[in-house]
């Protein structure tokens, strides 16, 4: 090798410059690792070898920002990917070409010779950066046939496993059960076994598992069910750590389409004396509604086997397994025949309440009854006990489900959301187990309660609402109000999940149901309002207006608060729709209705509406009307809110009523100043500064320069103090105030003040990207100008 032309050229290049250079060595793909190892050995004097293996969707290891110095980077991996994946990665390498510079040293890529053309197509810019691309034809003689054969087999196995992902049976076969997938995996493993007695089958299975996990991350959920058995097969041999790694990366959200058969379960656990990893695996599944999990005997076996950890005093490990198991199978744990064993060992968990309970006979019943009767004061542990031991107290599932629902509902009313969720889920689980042939209204109520409890997880909420609607439809005789309630909730949730079509469909069904059976005009108006809001989001403004008008027509004018609030929503919808359609006069009429309705309901909101109304009139140039509205707002505010005065000042200024404008803005300054004195923080500071800057600009236009400068400087001082509190944030307000101060000073020949303000802007911008923005660059030029003028002024 040392005499080869390609090697000499590479050696010369490294000797000449040991900085970041790209070298492409082209040869047989499967020889990547041994060939690079042999090369690295010969190039030791240029640096320690640093290996990088490219993975699908993974350039992280190559592009990590902390790279060691004094190394020769050796990169391979294209040879272990299916062609499409390699092309894809090449394109990404090309896009990230600039980032390769983090590799502060020579980088030697091994490229499979037959992939080079594709690399040229997908990564032309990357290839253009090369210092050398050479065919390496004579490396084979340096590599022993055994090593070459093993590497070839490994590459084939990995490419095959990667390609095989595309051959995985789609969902319809998965639905047929787990057997075909297990067969497929077993077949893959068997084939791999032929390669070597080494750990190749493990590598294949793990690689396959990783592939599938990534597919899932890419949204190809349909293939993922095969991942679980693959992972288990890998880990049960006791060698792999696939689960742990997936767990860390949050990729372990597996879908189990059907319970493991006894045979499958035995196959999986047979290779290992324990199965403690199963519980975390199934915990990973818990987020998915369709989990089937293990059968009762399987759970029992799992729990019993996990006691082996106790025998070895691995308490922490046992504790994790047990807690996971209890959490996942809490509604079934009493049935699996291991309850006594669980209780006798539970003290190892160290839960004081449980230990206390174990000290007295009959504790279970007492605990559960107290939980149900005075649940609002219960601690989380007691809720857990309720969930676990409830079945013993109320053996009839329907009664227990109802009790849990009531308990959960109470917890929800006192805002104990997470506890409420546990109870409601347990209740629903029992209702589900009861079957859907003749579901009961309480089942729907429990689903509705749970859905309302899931405030921040709209996707999960959507599933629950759909189930609620589905169950409510099956209740005999039909409970229209219950179904309408479920439909209403589903519509709102669909709307929030940006599924307007589903929202529209659902609301249409609810409205039809109201017309057929309930005949409640308030409910109908409410649904029409929601339908209108959906139409508005879909930019179907005309239809939305029709619905809003219809709702306003049928809504009884009974003067109640709810009725008024609904009317406000309907007029707001009209305002928004008319505005979008460009019918501004009508929009303003609708806005006026909102203000009138709001007045008796909420002074604060009414004032906000008045301000917005005034702003709109000002924007529309209807100044006299704007002045009347905003004056009313200033009076109604009792002189305690600054913004109406600021707005009034703007209106007066636009009306050329300078003295009144100054008076109003000074009032805004006074109110803000009081707010600041009261100890309110940053917000008041900025509000006061803005009012002062407005005042300053008015004074400047009235030729009262000294006062204007004085006021602007006060604003700057305030904002400086504010900026000091948040040093990591770019002080945009302060920069803007300084610019105003600088311009004002410059225009009145106060060049030193101007120079000071501009220089301060540059100092402030220095640590931030904004230093290269146009406004800051402009300030740089302005500073040069005023410095010159300042020098001249001083000289003269």
């Amino acid at each position, binding site marked *: 090798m040392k005499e080869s032309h390609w090697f000499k050229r590479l050696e010369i290049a490294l000797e000449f410059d040991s900085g970041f250079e790209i070298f492409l060595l082209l040869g047989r793909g499967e020889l990547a690792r041994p060939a690079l190892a042999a090369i690295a050995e010969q190039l030791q004097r240029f640096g320690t070898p640093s290996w990088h293996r490219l993975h699908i969707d993974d350039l992280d290891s190559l592009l990590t920002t902390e790279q060691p110095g004094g190394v020769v980077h050796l990169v391979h991996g294209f040879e272990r990917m299916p062609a499409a994946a390699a092309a894809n990665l090449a394109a*990404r390498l090309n896009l990230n070409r*600039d980032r390769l510079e983090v590799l502060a040293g020579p980088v030697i890529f091994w490229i499979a010779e037959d992939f080079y053309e594709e690399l040229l197509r997908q990564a032309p810019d990357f290839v253009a950066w090369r210092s050398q691309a050479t065919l390496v034809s004579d490396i084979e003689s340096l590599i022993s046939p055994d090593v070459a054969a093993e590497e070839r087999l490994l590459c084939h196995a990995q490419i095959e496993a990667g390609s095989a992902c595309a051959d995985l049976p789609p969902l319809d076969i998965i639905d047929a059960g787990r057997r075909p997938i297990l067969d497929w995996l077993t077949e893959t493993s068997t084939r791999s076994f032929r390669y070597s007695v080494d750990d190749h089958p493990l590598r294949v299975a793990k690689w396959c598992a990783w592939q599938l996990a990534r597919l899932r991350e890419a949204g190809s959920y349909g293939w993922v069910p095969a991942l679980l058995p693959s992972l288990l097969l890998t880990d049960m041999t006791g060698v792999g750590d696939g689960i742990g790694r997936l767990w860390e990366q949050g990729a372990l959200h597996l879908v189990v389409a059907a319970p493991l058969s006894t045979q499958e379960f035995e196959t999986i656990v047979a290779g290992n004396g324990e199965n403690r990893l199963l519980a975390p695996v199934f915990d990973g599944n818990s987020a998915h509604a369709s989990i089937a999990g293990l059968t009762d005997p399987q759970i029992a076996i799992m729990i019993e086997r996990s006691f082996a950890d106790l025998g070895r005093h691995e308490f922490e490990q046992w504790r994790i397994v047990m807690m996971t198991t209890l959490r996942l199978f809490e509604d079934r744990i009493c049935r699996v025949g291991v309850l006594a064993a669980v209780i006798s060992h539970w003290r190892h968990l160290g839960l004081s309440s449980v230990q206390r309970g174990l000290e007295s006979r009959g504790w279970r019943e007492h605990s559960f009854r107290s939980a149900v009767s005075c649940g609002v004061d219960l601690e989380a542990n007691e809720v857990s006990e309720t969930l676990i031991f409830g079945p013993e107290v109320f053996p009839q599932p329907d009664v227990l489900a109802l009790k849990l629902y009531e308990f959960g509902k109470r917890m929800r009313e006192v805002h104990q959301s997470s506890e409420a969720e546990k109870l409601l889920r347990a209740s629903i689980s029992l209702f589900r187990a009861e079957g859907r042939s003749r579901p009961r209204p309480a089942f729907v109520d429990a689903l509705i309660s749970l859905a309302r409890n899931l405030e921040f997880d709209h996707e999960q909420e959507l599933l629950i609402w759909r189930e609620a609607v589905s169950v409510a439809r099956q209740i005999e005789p039909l409970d229209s109000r219950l179904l309408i309630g479920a439909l209403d909730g589903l519509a709102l949730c669909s709307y929030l999940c940006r599924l307007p079509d589903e929202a529209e469909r659902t609301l249409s069904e609810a409205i039809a149901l109201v017309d057929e059976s309930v005949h409640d005009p308030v409910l109908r108006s409410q649904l029409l309002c929601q339908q209108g809001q959906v139409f508005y989001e879909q930019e179907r403004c005309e239809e939305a207006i029709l619905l809003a008008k219809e709702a306003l027509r049928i809504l009884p004018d009974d003067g109640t608060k709810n009725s008024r609030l609904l009317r406000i929503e309907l007029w707001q919808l009209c305002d928004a729709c008319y505005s979008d359609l460009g019918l501004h006069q009508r929009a303003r009429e609708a806005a006026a209705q909102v203000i009138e309705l709001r007045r008796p309901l909420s002074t604060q909101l009414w004032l906000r509406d008045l301000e917005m109304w005034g702003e709109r009139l000002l924007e529309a140039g209807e100044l006299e009307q704007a002045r009347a509205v905003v004056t009313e707002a200033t009076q109604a505010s009792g002189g305690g809110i600054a913004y109406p005065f600021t707005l009034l000042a703007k209106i007066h200024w636009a009306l050329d009523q300078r003295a009144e404008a100054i008076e109003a803005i000074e009032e805004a300054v006074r109110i803000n100043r009081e707010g600041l004195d009261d100890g309110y923080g940053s917000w008041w500071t900025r509000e006061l500064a803005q009012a002062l800057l407005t005042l300053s600009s008015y004074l400047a236009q009235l030729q009262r320069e000294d006062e204007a400068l004085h006021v602007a400087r006060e604003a700057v001082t305030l904002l400086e103090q504010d900026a000091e509190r948040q040093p990591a944030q770019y002080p945009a307000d302060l920069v803007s105030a300084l610019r105003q101060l600088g311009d004002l000073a410059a225009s009145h020949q106060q060049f030193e003040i101007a120079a000071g303000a501009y220089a301060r802007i540059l100092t402030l911008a220095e640590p931030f990207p904004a230093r290269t923005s146009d406004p800051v660059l402009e300030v740089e030029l302005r500073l040069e100008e005023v410095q010159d003028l300042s020098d001249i002024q001083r000289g003269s």
Partner: protein
Amino acid sequence: MGQTRDAWRRLYKVCDPKERLHVDELNLFVERPDSVARKIANSLRSGFDEQGKWVICGSVGTGKSTELTKLAEILRESYLIVGVDLWRASARIDEVSAAEILFCIGAAAVRTAESRFGHQVDPTLKKHLQTAFAGLLDDRHSVEVAELVEGVTLLAFDLLAPGAVGAAKSAMKAARAATGAQVLPIGRPALGGLTRPVKDGDPALDALVWAVDQILSDVAQIRAPLVLVDGLDKLTRIDAIRDLFATSRTLAKPQAPLVYTGPVTLMLAAEWSAAANYFDRARLANLVVAEPTAPSRRAAPQQIEDGRTAARGIVSRRCESAGIELSSAFTTQALDLLIRKSGGLIRQLLQLVRESVKLAGMRDLEIVDEMTARSACDEWRKEFEITMTGVRREELEYIEAHGEPKGGQVSHELLLWNYAIPYANGEMWFAPNPLIELRKA
């Protein structure tokens, strides 16, 4: 006086293909007498082409992106430069549709106005852009359009500050940090193949054109916009080129002056003829440094001499930057050989110079002589051999004889990879890359 190894190292670094040209480094580049940027700028300034649409096409490495940079620099005071880095914004450039490109233009205009001028484009218009684009999406894709707006990559040139090289580079780093224009997430960019196939005149496409026009009109409150789109020169499939430039006129629709970088294949008359209805072509031909290979083509001796002089100028500037005098670094014969073997491709010229400098440095030579230059050329010749096939050789022989390719995918790849090089002097002709030995001795 001869060169030391340190001096050779300096020159070696100055010729590094990894070092990009920055605005203030353009002086390392000899401005070509037919500067495309200057021509387009003059055309815009003269007022005759206020809504002009240009495609700059030329070989890979001839400086198309550099011309965009130069154009931005010339016109930055009089136009709002809206730059789109399509290559970085898309996962697979060949799958990018005209609708996606329009969307990128709209999004880039919004982001440029906001980030550089603090100008907030009317939110209704932003919504229109998103809605119109959402109406074109293929049902198979679930895409968050609002996120796409943020993901469109702006060209980095308009973020460069004037000043010294160091200042420019630090500005580039700041811009990278602030905008992500250069530092990309390792994850795949989003664009490419997102939209369903639509033809000109489709109402959904018209709605998108309307939205983009309204945004361009909004940002015109700052300054008249000039849109520069880089990346389409990287198209690798001939049918993708035809779809974008010939079959449809969508790319020419926005109501603003527009400049695209286009693939070298558009230099072929047959491929250009349909696109010529909507665009002006700005050809970035290579320096003519040798007689055409085809007997039917002619180049005036003066043009060849001018080309060689320009190439010498480029090498001279690099030498100057490394503190070396050209005449003391290369013998006349060596430099002539390197220039001839470069085929007038600037990137290839720099690669050959770099290789010869490395050889001279390692051999402790005081000057690059003809033998060293020949060795350098030989190293790079071998790289072309790697991907040479019978079909490609046959096509190159045809080009050598006739001065033009036959057309089609093989020709396109030869042009894309610089196996064949285009030249112009009023008319176009092509020649095989002089590094390639078509007939082995």
